[in-house]
């Protein structure tokens, strides 16, 4: 199984350890992972702003980098959602369709494709609040959102339960958006930050020491908010926890 690793631009720039953990974890689980060296971004910042024409060249580059793989895996629900649902600025050739269909977010890849049932190296003895990115939750169906009257399931929590010592705490508003929202956080900073403040206050009230998520973008925003409010919360990507990060 040839797996192409996609490290989204902001993970590359701000959270390199998330990319490293993803790579190591996949290798530990027996995958042959390649990192196409000329990769940049999935095009989300542009399409998110409605600028599809401006995203076309970036989308084409993405497809060029990843068309040779059985699977493309990325530690980011929102980027995977972009590739799967919105990579439409370029003609939909067989190659493009293949890349879109075989791009997976890390959690769902571990859960649905590799069907991981054991993570003997993982140990994270902390009180954890899990944050579900909205695109991961409602766009690529990581879990059952609270709005829907459907049977409960949660792929990320299934995985976290394989980690020794994790104690999950419940949030009052588990599925509420944290306000990052891609370029929303930049163009509508007041509402975005207020949503972030409310989110981190909720996590703090729930007694969490760590917030774990499959999306670095949400974590980066929340971390910025928690630090601004002076709350003692720590933020870490699920790839690192599953890969055996101690803290």
């Amino acid at each position, binding site marked *: 199984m040839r797996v192409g690793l996609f490290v989204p631009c902001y993970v*590359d720039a701000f959270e390199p350890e998330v990319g490293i953990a993803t790579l190591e974890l996949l290798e530990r689980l027996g995958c042959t992972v390649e990192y196409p060296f000329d990769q940049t971004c999935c095009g989300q910042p542009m399409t998110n702003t409605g600028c599809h024409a401006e995203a076309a060249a970036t989308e084409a580059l993405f497809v060029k980098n990843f068309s040779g793989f059985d699977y493309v895996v990325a530690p980011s629900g929102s980027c995977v959602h972009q590739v799967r649902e919105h990579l439409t600025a370029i003609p939909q050739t067989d190659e493009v369709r293949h890349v879109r269909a075989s791009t997976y977010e890390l959690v769902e890849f571990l859960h649905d494709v590799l069907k991981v049932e054991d993570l003997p190296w993982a140990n994270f003895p902390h009180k954890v609040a899990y944050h579900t990115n909205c695109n991961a939750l409602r766009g690529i169906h990581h879990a059952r959102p609270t709005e829907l*009257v459907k049977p409960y399931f949660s792929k990320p929590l299934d995985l976290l339960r394989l980690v020794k010592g994790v104690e999950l705490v419940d949030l009052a508003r588990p599925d509420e958006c944290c306000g990052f929202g891609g370029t929303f956080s930049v163009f509508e900073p007041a509402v975005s930050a207020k949503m972030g403040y409310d989110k981190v206050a909720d996590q703090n009230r729930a007694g969490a020491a760590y917030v774990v998520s499959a999306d670095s973008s949400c974590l980066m925003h929340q971390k910025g908010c928690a630090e601004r409010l002076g709350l003692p919360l720590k933020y870490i990507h699920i790839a690192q926890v599953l890969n055996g990060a101690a803290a």
Partner: protein
Amino acid sequence: MSVEDLNPREREGVIHPEVRAGHDESERAPDGRRLQHAEAASKPIRAPQTREPQPRGAKIRGDRPINQSEAAERFLAAPLHQAAHDERLWDLRKKRDASAHGVPEWEELRELASQIKTHTLSHLDRYLEQFEAAAKANGVHVHWAKDGADHNRIVLEILRSHGAKTLVKSKSMLTEECGFRHHMAANGIEVIETDLGERIQQLDNEEPSHVVAPAVHKTRMDVAEVFAKTLGTDPDNDDAHYLAESQRETTRPYILKADAGMTGCNFAIAETGTVVTCTNEGNADLSGNVPPLQIHSIGIEKIVPKVEHLGVFIRLLSRSALGSPITQYTSHFRAPRAGTEMHMVLVDNGRSERLGMEEFWTSLKCIRCGACMNTCPVYRRSGGLSYGATYSGPIGLIIDPTFNKRKYSTLPFSSTMNGSCTNVCPVKINIHEQIFAWRKVLVEEHQIPALKQGMMKAAGAVLSRPAAYRAAIGAADSALKVLPRFAVYNPLNTWGKKREMPDAPRQTFHAWYKQNRMKDTGR
């Protein structure tokens, strides 16, 4: 004031207590301090201890694009209002969840409702004609209005031909759309709103901020102040009972002596020519039944084929809106009472044009339950008036631009596209996907600021060229300056005003990979 003070909520699990308690759909026991109808029986707004002036909505400047984020910022600057608003609407969302989870076939109901609407809208001409014929056979006068001005003109003619000078009205967003109240005032007709929330808004010279709870952005103190000024009540008494009762006492005489009564329409049944309204205060019954002249304003998308379809929507409507199993009054108006006249005005006002919009026509399925607003995290923090439009919140974002692309061009950007609206919508409108689609349309039609598009163009240029991209974020410490530079011209300002900046990593993943994994490849 800290965030802690604003949201002293109890911790709750993923499953709300109401759901855990089983399938009890009855109203919770009255505590004596609350009004009895479902809307008012939701969590009361805690009266703030300190007086905080009510923030006002978006500034309207003709067709200039609405600055929603500026108005939202002002709403946020009134933390007591914002917290009460957020808390009350979130409470409605929780009640909605509880009652939805109490109906095992909930998702099937949504699907059925969506299909009935899809079918009806696909054969709208046929059902409208059927409706008209049935209504005429019932002795009703039927009128067709192509837009708001047409509607207002028709109603004015009806009123004039009866020498009517006063009209009592039960809440209708359609008449808001038409600017009805203002038009009537300019023509010497006195219009009195009979819905409590709507009356509050009328007395305060404001538009409704929410389709179900028009004055939800006001605290009880705000209402006490408005009523003290306009109705002469005690300015220091903000008891909900007292205020509601005062409104009722001052409005009833108008109802009794009004020359005409008007209601909106929740559902119009093609088979029988019936108008159905759902209210919690019974005010549509009064507006419809008491005055000698009766007028119903009907948006043409409100049609359902048969009475048997109504049950699907009635089961969904109030559960989605307020979490109550049903609205207190579901009134059917079919034929004029003996010796009176009944008129129905079927209003298009942009609807048939919207019906022709491939990506946006399903927005016509909307039954105006407000669930998407209640769940919307941006709406709850901005207040409905920040959208500067008749329809606010998620549904507003997708229908407002169909009224005026320039004026409402910014609204589809006032969303994180988190998708909760789509999931709560009882008729399954893909709201967040339509928001996404609108952004594309608005960009293509040059309805977004050139600066914003320029930034995206620059971003696209960097992100599609690996060498340029590497140069931009290559050095570890410069990564911070380009958070990502493509998204923010002045990142330190916008991000850092309210949030701490991320730490600069020692090196990018790319550099790490090169150093640790590519030693032998010579690249």
